[in-house]
């Protein structure tokens, strides 16, 4: 009898604690509730990179005076990297075509070079120096940044069925129409040795050209 009473109370007690326990569990705030979520969102600070525009790419057109072979149109492309405000590195590639020499014209038939050998191609790798940077004023309304630069370098020339080491030097003027668009006028001399007429001789190949370039 005693045993039965004991069992009854114990069962009742267990079930009560169990229910209470459940209830307590339900009332307990869940893990995610417990941590106080800060109301403000952390700002993602992304510092944008400043766009640097030290490269310049462009195209030009002009006249190339090929020694003994007349003055002919020349067209080319350029790529420059501005190292400092004073110094830049420039690469050029251009094409032209030699005309007939005076001898060929006078003699009538004789042709010294085949047609494909008259193709004149050169490339230059040069260092430029903005020696006279400044501003150009057009009327009282407009001011454009500009620079007069000296440039010199080395490169190669393909002409008359041969390739020749070529030194170049010159002077140029750059006018910045906007921050990224420039207009150029250049005068260059290309010096190389050529033995088209038998003995090797130094030739001067003067070039006058103009073109546009963009900075990126």
């Amino acid at each position: 009898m005693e045993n039965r009473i004991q069992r009854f109370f114990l069962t009742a007690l267990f079930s009560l604690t169990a229910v209470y326990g459940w209830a307590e569990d339900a009332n307990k705030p869940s893990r995610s509730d417990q941590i106080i979520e800060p109301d403000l969102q952390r700002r993602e600070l992304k510092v944008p990179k400043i766009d640097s525009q030290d490269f310049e790419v462009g195209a030009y057109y002009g006249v190339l005076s090929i020694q003994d072979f007349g003055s002919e149109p020349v067209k080319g492309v350029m790529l420059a990297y501005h190292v400092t405000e004073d110094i830049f590195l420039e690469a050029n590639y251009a094409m032209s075509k030699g005309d007939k020499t005076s001898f060929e014209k006078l003699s009538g038939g004789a042709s010294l070079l085949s047609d494909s050998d008259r193709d004149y191609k050169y490339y230059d790798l040069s260092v430029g120096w903005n020696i006279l940077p400044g501003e150009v004023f057009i009327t009282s309304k407009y001011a454009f940044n500009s620079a007069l630069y000296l440039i010199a370098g080395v490169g190669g020339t393909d002409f008359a069925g041969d390739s020749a080491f070529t030194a170049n030097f010159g002077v140029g003027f750059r006018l910045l129409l906007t921050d990224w668009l420039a207009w150029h006028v250049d005068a260059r001399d290309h010096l190389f040795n050529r033995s088209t007429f038998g003995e090797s001789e130094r030739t001067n190949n003067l070039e006058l050209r103009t073109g546009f370039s963009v900075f990126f």
Partner: protein
Amino acid sequence: MLFANAKKIALLLLLNTAFGCIAHADDNYLPVKVVDPFIELHTGPGRGYPIFYIAERGAIVEAMKQRTDWIKVRINKDTPREKEGWVSIAQMAKTLAPDGEPLAVSHPNFDAYQQRHWEGGLMTGSFGGADIVSAYGAYHFTRNISVEIEGSQYFGSFSNGKIATGSLVMQPFPQWRISPFVTLGGGMVYTEPKSTLVQATNRSDGLIDAGIGVRYYLTRRFLLRAQYKNYVVLTDQETNQNVEEWKIGFSAFF
């Protein structure tokens, strides 16, 4: 009618995208705060261009773009006093970025030179008596080790040619302003004998090379470089050909 509407909508969308892009680009300019007493706005990206405006302490300026050591900024956007001008990176380095830190400008100096990854330059000299012109690019893995790719053209009395090489370059003392290096590499040479002089056909051969050289950090992003290389051209003939090369040139680093 429907078609006209569709066209109008398309046009509007296009305009919206176009202007949206511009507006977006505008918003992307980095606003910085002036903490020095003032910064000076020049009319152009150069030390000689006149100062035409001054942004005082506390002013917010927007950094638009950089050219060499100058940053173009805009101040007082959408007000009658809106100005755009060029500020030296030395002054910009003292402004505060939105995160409260000093603006991280790329300031090319000797420290930056020692941390450089990319390097490129032009060289000229003598390749076994022939004139040679080269352009190269290098990537620095560590301060000591870099790889280089080089393209050259040479112009000789008997032949012209083109050379392409790849090299591993080791620089034992990167902290020196005048720093020596050793180089080891290989590549190809394409030889074009002069038809007027010798009867031979164009050929290409493999080559290996070893060399020593020196880099001299000049200023800003600029360095001078001089090197000597000894090439062994692996010809089909009975003996391999040995060519000595001297070169000097200018380089820049990024």
